[in-house]
């Protein structure tokens, strides 16, 4: 009888550490996400030129940049396991849930790194200062949790497919659409200086989305991982 009490926190932490280590060696996903967000932001800023569109457009552009930057690098967590043929070892070592949660946390870390770089650049290049910075950050963080929480399982799905990058974006977009709508709304409220009460419905939606999507991923991941 194998021991039933798995040390979940320990396993998740180990998967996360392993991801950090292997990412640190190649820096593939990190570079892809950072460079992609820089390039998109530059294109947006450059093509706007002297025009300063209103906060509605700015909030939408900000999340478009985030979405495509995320789509460029987040699939890598599972794709690299298939390419290096290490998925089998990971299956032996850790239970499915620990693998998934570890990788969600790693993707979240990647996105937070990207946001740390992107937000100041966004403020500088596009001259858009969020009036309510705390609301801006909480909307951003909830959005990033949802981004990594719902796309990590899609990364596992596309890692076995023959066309990975394009498929990842195609499958992610319909899943992420409720998140994008809510996150853009929160960002818009924070740009014009509204308080938490004004952004409460989309905040609730975003929170519910994060919880539901992560739970659903954990429930469904067993089917994918042991295939």
């Amino acid at each position, binding site marked *: 009888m194998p021991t039933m009490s798995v040390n979940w926190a320990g396993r998740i932490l180990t998967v996360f550490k392993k991801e950090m280590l292997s990412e640190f060696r190649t820096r593939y996903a990190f570079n892809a996400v950072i460079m992609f967000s820089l390039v998109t932001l530059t294109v947006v800023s450059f093509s706007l030129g002297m025009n300063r569109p209103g906060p509605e457009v700015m909030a939408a552009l900000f999340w478009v940049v985030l979405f495509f930057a995320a789509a460029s690098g987040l699939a890598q967590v599972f794709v690299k396991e298939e390419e290096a043929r290490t998925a089998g070892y990971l299956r032996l070592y850790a239970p499915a849930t620990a693998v998934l949660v570890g990788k969600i946390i790693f993707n979240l870390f990647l996105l937070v790194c990207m946001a740390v770089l992107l937000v100041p650049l966004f403020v500088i290049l596009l001259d858009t200062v969020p009036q309510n910075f705390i609301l801006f950050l909480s909307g951003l963080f909830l959005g990033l949790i949802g981004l990594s929480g719902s796309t990590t399982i899609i990364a596992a799905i596309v890692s*076995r*497919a023959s066309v990975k990058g394009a498929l990842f974006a*195609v499958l992610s977009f*319909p899943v992420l659409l*409720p998140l994008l709508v809510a996150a853009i709304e929160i960002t818009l409220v924070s740009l014009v200086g509204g308080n938490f009460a004004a952004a409460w419905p989309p905040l609730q939606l975003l929170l*519910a989305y994060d919880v539901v*999507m992560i739970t659903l991923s954990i429930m*469904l991941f067993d089917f994918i991982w042991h295939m």
Partner: protein
Amino acid sequence: MIWKWFIFAAMAAVIILAFVLPSPMDPRLSLGPVDAYRIFYFHVPAAWVAALSFMVGMVQSARYLKTKDMDFDRRAVAANRLGMAFSAMALVTGSIFAKMTWGEFWNWSEIREVSIFILLLIYGGYFALRSALSDDEVRATFSAVMTIIFTVAALFLIFVLPRIYPAFSQHPSDTIVDNEGKMSLSPMVALVFGLSMAAFTALYYWLYEITVRGSRYFDKNRLES
């Protein structure tokens, strides 16, 4: 066999009656040409079948995950294929109607238009995923998992978003049941509409069974050869 005759007779009756009877819309309340509202007899059943098919696809996918029986995968694929066709039908007819009555083909604030478009995107992703996976079992499992994720995301979009953003909607929603919860259709319109719903649903069921049977034969012959 009797089904086919029912579908034929009902469809023929619906097509004739939809154009012979006066338009279901009161001319005093009509925006644009009153005859445009005849689309009600075809657009609403198509949208209903699209929604039904999406649900069938989701249920069959869940059953596949539970039993790992390939037949449920075939059923899910058949439902999604037909769902795609009927969604496209509802989208195109709705868009033409929107142009004739509200003056524009497309409006992003209309949640029904947006959600049926998202449905098409979902089907596109589903079939793109299926064609990118080569192993039968992996393909069936992964696309079933993806269907369930899509369904939950679509539920968020369809049920939660309009409650949070009460967007300006021009879509007639009080056509069948009015604001007091009573039938607002005249008896003749209700009869034709009911017949049309029944005919579309029967047509869907017939097409669904044929598609499933076809793919069963296809898989059997592929395995034997």
